[in-house]
């Protein structure tokens, strides 16, 4: 689907000129003295699912609203299908938008909601009815077109919102935390459904969320935002496995962060002083004498039979919590509180045991991260 859109023509700009691309060039948004979004560069390729991930106030929603045209950017340029849309009002941008609480028209039934965009485009009644029914069918709501939004469940309302935003063949789809109002089980189900729909339509999606699991599950690419800037951008696995800073590591999944200083370097390996945890070795870059943080994901921290000489230490168990599939242990060692997560099925029954424990990690699983705060 996407391959046909991105043609063999590899001249710069050719890919962005293809249908469905969204591009932001040096986009900046200020409210008085407050900088909401700062010199943002971002490209969503045709057919790509890109997630803007960040805490509230990171500028992700503002960025999306600028793409949709609801917010005016202070400087920079937004391009859709390779054409600048800065001067276009939202209704001429031809983007499907799904809002946080779906924003369905309460006095219209599901089919009328879906038909709305076609009606605005002066499409004849018979055709728009047919297309609306087809769109509802595609999201699994065939036969429910006559229901009012308040007669539909949260998940159904969301499907109507999706059908409504897709029925007029928009250039791309913008989704603003569309799953925030759903319970966990339904949310996971809808994640898969939206992803499947997006793949089968080959439509570009710009997705906004603060939910890292959602971002991991759905995205082709995650763009992590903080304070109006992009901190890191890449495929979900890469961002998770190789976060650029300590902040990204702790925002995208749980992690243990141990402050450290680089003592010496041997080729690609750095020896670090972990304070109370002694000496560690990491496969990473780093400047001798500089302060960093070592990040060890809880699933990579392991119990050791004896006190490790490096990459670990001895401490005491604070608590153990059984989360069903996994058990989360909290351990204090060397003045740090560490989190260790193990599969319940592989648990060695330490759960209840208080007292001294030895923990450690493999050098390959530790990351040396730039301190950001």
């Amino acid at each position: 689907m996407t391959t046909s859109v991105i043609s063999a023509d590899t001249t710069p700009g050719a890919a962005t000129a293809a249908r469905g691309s969204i591009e932001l060039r040096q986009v900046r948004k200020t409210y008085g003295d407050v900088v909401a979004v700062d010199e943002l560069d971002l490209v969503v390729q045709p057919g790509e699912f890109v997630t803007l991930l960040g805490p509230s106030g990171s500028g992700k929603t503002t960025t999306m609203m600028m793409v949709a045209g609801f917010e005016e950017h202070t400087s920079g340029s937004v391009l859709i299908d390779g054409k600048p849309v800065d001067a276009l009002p939202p209704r001429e941008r031809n983007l499907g938008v799904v809002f946080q609480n779906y924003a369905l028209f309460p006095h219209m039934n599901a089919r009328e909601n879906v038909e709305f965009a076609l009606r605005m485009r002066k499409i004849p009644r018979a055709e728009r009815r047919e297309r609306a029914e087809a769109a509802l069918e595609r999201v699994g709501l065939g036969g429910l077109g006559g229901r009012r939004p308040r007669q539909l469940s949260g998940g159904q309302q969301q499907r109507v919102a999706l059908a409504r935003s897709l029925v007029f063949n928009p250039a791309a789809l913008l989704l603003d935390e569309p799953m925030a109002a759903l319970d966990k089980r339904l949310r996971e189900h809808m994640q898969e459904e939206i992803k499947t729909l997006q793949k089968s339509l080959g439509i570009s999606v710009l997705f906004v969320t603060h939910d890292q699991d959602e971002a991991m599950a759905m995205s082709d690419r995650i763009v992590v935002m903080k304070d109006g800037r992009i901190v890191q951008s890449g495929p979900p696995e890469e961002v998770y496995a190789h976060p650029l800073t300590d902040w990204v590591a702790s925002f995208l999944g749980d992690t243990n962060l141990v402050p450290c200083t680089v003592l010496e370097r041997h080729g690609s390996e750095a020896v670090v002083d972990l304070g109370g945890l002694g000496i560690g070795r990491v496969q990473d870059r780093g400047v001798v004498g500089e302060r960093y943080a070592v990040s060890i994901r809880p699933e990579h921290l392991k119990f050791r039979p004896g006190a490790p000489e490096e990459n670990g230490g001895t401490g005491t168990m604070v608590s153990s919590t059984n989360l069903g599939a996994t058990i989360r242990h909290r351990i204090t060692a060397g003045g740090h509180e560490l989190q260790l997560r193990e599969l319940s099925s592989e648990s060695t029954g330490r759960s209840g045991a208080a007292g001294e424990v030895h923990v450690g990690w493999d050098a390959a699983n530790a990351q040396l991260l730039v301190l950001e705060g």
Partner: protein
Amino acid sequence: MKRSKTTSPRPQGRAQGRALALLSLPVFAFLVIPTAIVVPVALNDSRYITFPPEGVSLAAVQGFFEDHAWTTALSASLQAAAIAVVLGVLLGATAAIGLHGRKFPGQPAVVGLILAPMIVPTVVLALAFYQFFISVGMVGSIIPIGLAHAVIATPYVYLTTRASLAGLNPALVRSAQSLGAGALSILRHVYLPVILPGLVSGALFAFSVSIDETVMSLFMQSPSATTLPVKMFTDIQFNLTPKIAVSSAVLVTVATVGLLLQVIYVLRRRSTARMLPLAV
């Protein structure tokens, strides 16, 4: 199985409700009786206004509707009210929509200006309007009275519309925009369904404000523009007939019918909302 305990406090609640009803009754009577008393007086079989009535007769009512001076006054009142309702709804509703969700320097002043006619003493407004319409040469018809009534009706429509707009989800406007709707389509498909109840009650307020208004109508009256309250006021000084009571009864009836219509409208909206089965 959880068993709720909500059944036990109910008798106490019922007793409280009864006590409240008992207390409310005299207050209710105090408010309603002076208004209701005009009806028996209007139906009195007498050539003068007397109470208690001496017999029941529709003679005065018939006399009222056969008297050209009175029917002209009623018609003048209805014309002024029509102008007040149409203009008041247009101005009040557009002001409420225009100011909705917007913040700009001087906005409180704009709102204050819209609401000012509710606060400024009517006699001051009456004098101002009188002088203004004299200077532009408009006195002598019902139009200036209708325009003046529109000014005092507008804040009511503004307030009821603003109240109904509080229930508007701002994302609805954005989603309509993203789906390709222009300003007029948004007005029709997003704003109108939400503000309709506010518009209806605002229009009824505007109507009753205008029908009831005396001071301004008195200042701007002329032989060809005498509203019902003005006619009542001038007649009561030298021509005390039961027709005055009839005209009061007419006003009370018009107001009551208007109120009932509104109640029916609200109840119907509620019941249609309730009749729709909710999703599980």
